């Protein structure tokens, strides 16, 4: 019980520290939020203007929602993915990683604490963007299965946390270039996951890659739930796949992180750099 309380306090410590960092870097956070809102609005306006762009009769309401789901889900997933790996990058730059790794806590607690914050912060940011974007468009969600959409997002949170933990290995081992590789991975996911289009429009050789990305299943599930009002039963395949990916990625990511940490300790790569 005492050990559990210790681990819980440590996990809260990571959340508290990251909240404090957000407060200290609040200008940067506000700037990024404004950019994200502008980006979400720009993408969604493409849907609103599609009739004029194509000269064809299109279902503007459906297209607008289609794009909005893409932009919001991607916003949420990228915040979760980025923040987990950036936490390690930040610790590398500041040189505090040695102190964190020296602390008597499990690596799971360490990464869980970072993940917990990223989920909460990602959700908050996305909700704010949704609130602003909703003010610009008349969104008819009367037929949407919002509960089902929430379940899909929950399952996605697990798998993207796992992906974030795997991504965190890169800055641990390569403080200078690790995060750049994380951005490359993120960019590939953006292209192959069908954030703004169905994956079927991708060239044939790219389509198998979409099956590997958890974002593909989140977007499919969210769109089925919100656009088509699909019941939870119909969403189960997507939810199941996401939980399955999470069940592999999360413990696998923590294990891999542990192996990477051991490698870094064996080769003396934990020293301050940057």
């Amino acid at each position, binding site marked *: 019980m005492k050990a559990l309380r210790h681990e819980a306090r440590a996990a809260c*410590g990571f959340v508290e520290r990251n909240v404090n960092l957000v407060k*200290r*870097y609040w200008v940067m956070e506000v700037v990024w939020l404004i950019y994200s809102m502008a980006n979400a609005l720009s993408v969604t306006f493409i849907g609103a203007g599609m009739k004029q762009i194509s000269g064809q009769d299109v279902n503007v309401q459906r297209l607008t929602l289609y794009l909005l789901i893409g932009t919001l889900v991607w916003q949420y997933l990228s915040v979760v993915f980025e923040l987990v790996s950036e936490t390690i990058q930040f610790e590398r730059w*500041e*040189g*505090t990683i040695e102190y964190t790794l*020296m602390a008597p806590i499990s690596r799971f607690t360490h990464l869980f604490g970072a993940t917990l914050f990223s989920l909460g912060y990602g959700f908050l940011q996305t909700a704010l963007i949704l609130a602003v974007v909703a003010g610009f468009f008349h969104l008819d969600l009367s037929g949407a299965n919002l509960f089902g959409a929430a379940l899909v997002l929950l399952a996605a949170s697990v798998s993207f946390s796992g992906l974030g933990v795997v991504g965190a290995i890169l800055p641990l081992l390569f403080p200078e270039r690790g995060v750049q590789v994380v951005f490359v991975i993120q960019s590939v996911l953006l292209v192959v996951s069908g954030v703004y289009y169905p994956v079927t429009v991708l060239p044939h050789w790219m389509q198998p890659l979409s099956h590997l990305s958890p974002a593909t299943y989140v977007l499919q599930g969210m769109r089925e739930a919100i656009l088509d009002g699909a019941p939870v039963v119909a969403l189960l395949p997507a939810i199941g796949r996401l939980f399955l990916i999470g069940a592999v990625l999360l413990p696998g990511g923590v294990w891999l992180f542990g192996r990477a940490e051991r490698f870094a300790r064996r080769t003396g790569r934990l020293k301050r750099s940057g």
Partner: protein
Amino acid sequence: MEAQAVTALELRGAHKTFRPIRWPWRRHDPPPAPGESGETGEADGTKRAVDALVDLSLTVQRGQIYGLLGPNGSGKSTLIRVVSTLIIPDRGEVTVFGHDVLREERAVKRLINRVSVEASFFKKLSPMENLLFGARLYGLDGRTARERATTILRRLHLRERSLWEPMEQMSRGMQQKVAIARAFLTQPILLLLDEPTTGLDPRSKREVQALVTELRREHDATVLLTTHDMQEADELCDRVAIIDHGRIVADGTPAELKARVPVEGREATLEEVFMALTGHGLGEPQAAGDEA
């Protein structure tokens, strides 16, 4: 009857060589010529193998302040990192109060804390925010952590206002004081101090030294201290080891070490002892590795 001595820290044949990592996607230099490995290294410590610790054995008894003297690159920081569980030795055994640093890592981590020569913090956060984070990792609740942090920081004469200002606005000396407070906050029974007073003004240095002796006196802590400051080692340490090229070349009380080097008409200084035993001065950095 004299109480039986308890071993706080023991290294037996600890050896660490840093070898260049051969990433499959990078071009590598040709392998070193026979006999070259272990003798030389590039400045970044990555081109050639560097022997940072060479079958090093050391025993520190509970309650001692044990000093490690050596130039840059002699292996002091590697030794501290090995005990801190941050570097895995290639061979040998390292135990802290009987707990093996590899097999009982978590138990060792609960007993130790460390201050390194560079004060590593989240520089945008205040001392209090940094210390609270550190304290939570060691299971302290917020209230206890806040109380202890305030007491220690006041003891180190940190202004009340500074407790909540970003650390980037503080001088290096002040930052180092906060680093010391972070280590003291968790009341470790083995405190690893890696050149803790480097960069501090004389008054701050005195305050830190007083705090170290106080921690030993009041909390029964054992201290492993690396330093370049001979006077500090002389005044603070019960025993001193001189480390050179990853090897302990001498070990004893400051008085014993001084007695080994006869100087006509007076007692030798620790610096003279160091030069006599190693053949070079403390100011001369050694090849690679360190700050290994």
